[in-house]
């Protein structure tokens, strides 16, 4: 986009815990001047209808992420370690509770 536009507020990622006992899940992002404002905006924007009991906000530029190009280096090795999965092991049907 055009270089002369500088957004005055940084971007934050928002995570909401839908109810006690569940993980916080990423729901989207928003712009805010600081963390406190990001929390307030997140409440207004992402929890207008009881969607959550707890909110986290994180500055987007603080998130480190694996890239799509890293797919093999990060995720391929698990494909040839099938012995990590319980279904790898053949157990006779006659053996109960295993």
């Amino acid at each position: 986009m055009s270089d002369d536009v500088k957004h005055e507020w940084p971007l934050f990622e928002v995570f909401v815990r839908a109810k006690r006992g569940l993980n916080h899940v990423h729901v989207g992002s928003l712009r805010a001047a600081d963390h406190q404002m990001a929390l307030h905006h997140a409440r207004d924007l992402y929890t207008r209808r009881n969607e959550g009991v707890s909110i986290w906000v994180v500055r987007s530029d603080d998130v480190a992420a694996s890239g799509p190009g890293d797919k093999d280096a990060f995720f391929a090795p698990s494909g040839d370690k099938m012995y990590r999965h319980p279904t790898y092991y053949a157990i006779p049907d006659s053996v109960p509770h295993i």
Partner: protein
Amino acid sequence: MNEEQVFTDTIAKDQRIEPRDWMPDGYRKTMIRQIAQHAHSEIIGMQPEGEWITRAPSLRRKAILLAKVQDEAGHGLYLYSAAETLGADRGDLTRRLIEGRQKYSSIFNYPTLSFADVGVIGWLVDGAAICNQVPLCRSSYGPYGRAMIRICKEESFHQRQGYELLMTMMGGTPAQREMVQDSVNRWWWPSLMMFGPPDDQSPNSAQSMAWKIKRHSNDELRQRFVDMSVPQAEALGVTLPDPELTWNADRGHYDFGTPDWDELKRVISGDGPCNSLRIENRRRADEDGAWVREAAAAHAAKKAGVAA
């Protein structure tokens, strides 16, 4: 596989494209345009109904309308957030809207003349929006699809509150019933135009279908909307202003008349009843809010400086 094959393969398998994936420039540009246009529609869409918040006939209706208009703001923000995942900048998108370089839905260029319009917008305009938007929940672009899921859940409230409002008015005085019929007469055709030009005049559709960012043609969705709306109009006791509207047993659909496509072209190109008013209001809100944005940023910078 090279990058382009991975992209094509992902789409072919009906999987989603995510922000950091490689994508063709055309896909990125089309998605930014589609999402921005949608976001702008939500934000401009606050105005026609927002005008009635202070004039709502009861506290209950006022609270409902306030919640609805707040939802529209929220929808705009979900969508700007999705556009930003493609490298667009929110401030830049707003400027493009204000300068008339990006468009928004033609429907919001019509005036709201009575409180019945609040009900008819909920019933027909949001009903048409739901027809358009439900298939977009399966858009090949992940962040857009996810925003659409959230939006569709909330649109259902919008449509139902509108229909309930109209049922209440239809149970009122003859003058109130006339107000509803007059409003339906004014909004029916513009609602049909919300689905865009007929298929044979919709140049970008084929590519958008191939990329799975559009799932049904304009005419298919328009037909679906007509079929949904006729029984709803009957239940409400209003007449849809189209003498050609008849059930066609062979097709299993309603036949209906042709919208005034010249009118749609005029409204899209800026010559609708309220185009300049809508943009002027948006420009003023942006300018009036500038000092708040600057003050908040200055406050944040000062606090960060103290903490460091």
